[in-house]
């Protein structure tokens, strides 16, 4: 599957700012911790379809975790 929105999860700090700006509300935090000790954000495979590639999350993310593509 080609993803529209990809998270570099080991850079994520669970600040949730991406979540707050996503118009589709498809970003969630994992229950597992990454090696930094945070619950990284992600978009599930199912929800990738719902992503409209607006890249608001990527523009908001302070840790340049997110890259966005459009089909």
């Amino acid at each position: 599957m080609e993803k529209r929105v990809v998270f570099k999860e080991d850079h994520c700090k669970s600040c949730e700012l991406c979540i707050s700006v996503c118009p589709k509300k498809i970003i969630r935090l994992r229950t597992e911790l990454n090696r930094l000790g945070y619950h990284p954000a992600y978009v599930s495979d199912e929800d990738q379809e719902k992503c409209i590639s607006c890249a608001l999350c990527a523009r908001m993310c302070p840790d340049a975790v997110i890259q966005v593509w459009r089909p």
Partner: protein
Amino acid sequence: MDHEVIMAGFGGQGIMLIGTLLTYAGKEEGKAVSWLPSYGPEMRGGTANCAVCVSDDSIASPVVVEPTAAVVMNRPSYEKFKNMVQPGGALIVNSSLVPDEEIRGDIEVYRIPANDVARELGSDRVANMVCLGALLGAREIVKVETVISVLRKVISQRHHSLLPLNEEALWRGYRLVKA
């Protein structure tokens, strides 16, 4: 007895708090005490640790290089301190975040799933108390009751509703070792 303890973990895990509690409790029991935190921006998002000395007579130096006991609440702390504990010393490992592995045989290692226990009790945030309880189970530095008595002094008034939960967590950790 001279206890020289190191406690370490992520910034947000409440390491400084359990170090402070141990120090206050030691003082409450009439012992000589000192508390020396790591400090500064490395705590920002990184790891934090503190050194606590509790002694029957006096404390020459607050610096702890070869601890008699250590509590490590995350993986980087585990890596950093596992080899520094004195032979015969105790190492309390938060096994919720530190994977199991072969380790030196000359110390006592207690693997406590502190986060899991804490979550069971209702809040991830008391994992530190579980660890402190475990430490006191492994080494009789101070009595758990003394820690509980200083808890209400150290914790700010508006969190006093959480006291029972903290007590519970302490005892759970204690019993996990004692059992």
